[in-house]
């Protein structure tokens, strides 16, 4: 079973309240739900939609066909009608948007009138529409009523009742007036398991908090703001200090300051904000200060498409900051990995005293995923080599930049030992004092860059799915995980031996992770949400393998698996 429901309308019409009730209803019933949010950069108006996909197997991508289209405005009936599946149904309020039809898959239901009659309030339109959609799926109503009860409990019993009545009225209206039997049937669940519905942003924030985040500083920027908001809303429980900065320059410098003093610190931004952080990134590299930076990508250049998605900042984060210095780059493909990857990000930052960048994007950050369970067992906290007074037999002899194993110098936290700490953004000696010596410069560059090799050994391999031999490989990274996996499944169902190679740990790249000799015989197709195929270039250079085709999308919207499959040239 695989059903998609799109709710379209203007910003501010309550699209999300419909999608979230529907989603939660089915997650409770043990289904897998994925919600893609597509919205314009406007607070009110414009054309927006949420697309809820419900399936009995895990789904983490958008479908291009919609089975139920709920139109809250006229625009939706025009713009979105083409994505209706052959047996799909449009639900719309014929009274309100003056659109009439007798076609069997266009079902008019007076949302507004029903809401006013039942509850004397137009706001209840959303609950009427929710009830109607549930009836179309031939699903029982009681789980919806339970979700409404939970959702509005805090607003009092009257609000709960009004919403429940409205949902019931919408449900009954469809059951009474639908001429044929519903086209889809969602069987009710046998067991009720505890699944979770959460966005990429929430997963990233949770991952950071579970990894011992103590200080967060950031500046609002879509699509990263939800991370700050989530941390802010739970800061008290997790004992975190959050400071909103006056700009991204201040945000990352505060992070470096806090981290220098020993707190696990993080910031999150998008590409434009990360531009402002480039100078400080280099500072973290030179002073060897841990820092975790989440970059939730959106389409550029410049302000670009603020509320849409792209994967075009890979080259940027890989090269940002002046001078050569080590860094690591991770890019989760699905929320189940996030806890592990965030803990890895903090551990690598601390152990290698280097900046670590975690790449998300609007599609990943804003979409809701169903998660079976979050595995806190994957979280370890390794603060790296930090010396205390017990470790220092002669504190006055301590040197901050003494080259240790893999170029890592044991650090002390300022003010917490008897030793004195010098950190310098200029080239410096082992003591941390400024120097112009060519010899020392050479030593220090080698010491710092040695950490890059250490990091390379820590980076995990890509996910290869399914295992075994293939004739065709779809190569991807980050947020395209779900959709590439789905495309691979489709291809295999059609008898094409396809395989996904998906990277979520990108840099420093380790070419030994894949069998280059075997891959030479296989057709490699890169799938990326950007114009040039940034990862494909990087991959080719690092492995010596040719990428035979690039499927690229840069219109600000996520891929669907059909789109990928259709674009594959030469499937033989």
């Amino acid at each position, binding site marked *: 079973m695989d059903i998609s429901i799109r709710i379209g309308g203007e910003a501010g019409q309550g699209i999300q309240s419909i999608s979230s009730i529907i989603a939660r209803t089915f997650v409770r019933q043990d289904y897998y739900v994925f919600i893609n949010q597509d919205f314009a950069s406007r607070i009110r108006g*414009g054309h927006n939609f949420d697309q809820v996909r419900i399936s009995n197997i895990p789904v983490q991508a958008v479908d291009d066909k919609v089975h139920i289209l709920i139109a809250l405005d006229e625009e939706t009936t025009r713009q979105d009608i083409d994505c209706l599946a052959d047996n799909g149904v449009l639900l719309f309020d014929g009274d309100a948007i003056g659109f009439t039809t007798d076609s069997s898959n266009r079902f008019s239901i007076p949302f507004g009138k029903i809401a006013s009659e039942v509850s004397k309030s137009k706001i209840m339109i959303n609950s009427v529409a929710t009830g109607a959609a549930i009836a179309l799926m031939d699903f029982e109503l009681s789980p919806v009523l339970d979700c409404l009860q939970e959702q509005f409990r805090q607003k009092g019993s009257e609000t709960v009742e009004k919403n429940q009545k409205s949902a019931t009225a919408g449900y009954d209206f469809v059951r009474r007036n639908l001429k044929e039997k519903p086209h889809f049937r969602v069987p009710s669940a046998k067991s009720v398991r505890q699944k979770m519905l959460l966005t990429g942003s929430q997963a990233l924030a949770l991952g950071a908090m579970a990894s011992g985040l103590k200080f967060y500083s950031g500046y609002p920027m879509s699509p990263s*703001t939800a991370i700050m908001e989530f941390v*802010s809303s739970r800061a008290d429980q997790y004992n975190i200090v959050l400071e909103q900065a*006056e700009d991204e320059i201040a945000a990352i410098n505060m992070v470096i300051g806090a981290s220098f003093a020993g707190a696990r610190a993080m910031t999150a931004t998008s590409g434009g904000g990360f531009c402002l952080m480039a100078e400080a990134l280099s500072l973290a590299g030179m002073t060897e200060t841990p820092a975790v930076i989440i970059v939730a990508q959106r389409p550029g250049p410049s302000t670009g498409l603020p509320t849409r998605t792209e994967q075009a900042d890979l080259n940027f984060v890989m090269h940002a900051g002046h001078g050569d210095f080590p860094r690591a780059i991770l890019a989760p493909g699905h929320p189940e990995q996030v806890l592990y990857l965030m803990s890895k990000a903090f551990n690598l930052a601390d152990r290698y005293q280097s900046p670590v960048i975690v790449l998300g994007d609007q599609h990943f950050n804003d979409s809701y995923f169903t998660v079976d369970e979050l595995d806190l067992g994957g979280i370890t906290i390794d603060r790296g080599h930090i010396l205390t007074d017990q470790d220092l037999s002669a504190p006055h002899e301590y040197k901050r930049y003494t080259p240790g194993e893999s170029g890592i110098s044991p650090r002390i936290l300022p003010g917490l030992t008897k030793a004195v700490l010098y950190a310098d953004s200029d080239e410096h000696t082992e003591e941390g004092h400024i120097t112009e010596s060519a010899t020392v410069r050479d030593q220090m560059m080698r010491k710092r860059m040695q950490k890059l090799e250490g990091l390379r050994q820590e980076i995990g391999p890509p996910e290869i799915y399914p295992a075994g031999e293939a004739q065709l490989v779809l190569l991807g990274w980050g947020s395209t995980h779900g959709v590439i996996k789905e495309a691979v499944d489709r291809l295999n169902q059609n008898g094409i031996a396809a395989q996904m190679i998906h990277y979520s740990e990108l840099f420093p790249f380790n070419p030994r992770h894949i069998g280059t000799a075997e891959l030479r015989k296989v057709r490699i197709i890169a799938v990326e949400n950007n114009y040039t195929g940034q990862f494909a270039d990087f991959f080719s250079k690092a492995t010596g393998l040719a990428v035979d085709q690039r499927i690229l999308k840069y219109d600000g919207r996520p891929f669907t698996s059909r789109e990928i499959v259709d674009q594959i040239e030469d499937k033989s």
Partner: protein
Amino acid sequence: MDKLTDKYLRKRKIPSTACSGCGLGQAHKAMVVAIDELGFDFYDIIWGTSIGCAGRQTFATWKGDNFAGTHGRVYAIARGLRLAIPVEKKLVLTVGDGDAFGIGFNHLLHAARSNAQMTVLVCDNLGYQSTGGQYGWTTPAGVKTDSSPYGMFEPNWVQTEMDILNVLKAAGATFLARHVSMDGRPLVESCKKALQNNGFSLVHCVFPCITNFGKNALGSRNTVNMFNWIKNRAAPLGEEKEDTLWRTGIYHDAINTRPEFSQLMRDKVSEIQRRYQDEGSH
């Protein structure tokens, strides 16, 4: 403002993309009325906008030349423009509180220092509203936002003892005023004065954001309540009460008293050119 709309604004952009009930339109309109009353035509003015509601919602509404800058940089862009456009053209910028007093503050101070001609209308929705409602540098004490769940407890820039307008005055601005968007005539008069200054003018105008500030601070999106909430906390300078947050009126009027940035530059250039000519003729 139908007649004025025809005269100065692009039809396709009116009504703007702001939420219904948003007070931004009042501030925007006041500036257009001021422009009209001073007899400017749309080609006399180049209109720049920033990022955030104030910029986004006024962008490309102007019939004449327009530009949109990146977040906080529009003052630096304007200084560059100022040097290259004909002297008689005027620059008007509609920007937000986060843009001017946060991320762009350094550039704003340098625009004031150099006294570059620009009329900056800071349309203040009391925080970061286009990103969903986080606190900013003018968010009143105690107000809850998504990033200040315990209420705004840090000092802000509009406290009497540390007023941003005093900072800008010390930095060299030659015209400064503060209003709330429902001020009507006094707001228009301040905009007119600002426009008549061949130098750096800034009008700080607080307006009601229904959608996010209203929801966070007042717990509802009721337009009337939100308007009154702001109106009741504003009073003309000298008539302030204990709970006044915004003292309205002209804070600093030194219009046309200091040389303007691009004029200074032009004078210097011709002086140097003259020197070379003199040397050449020897």
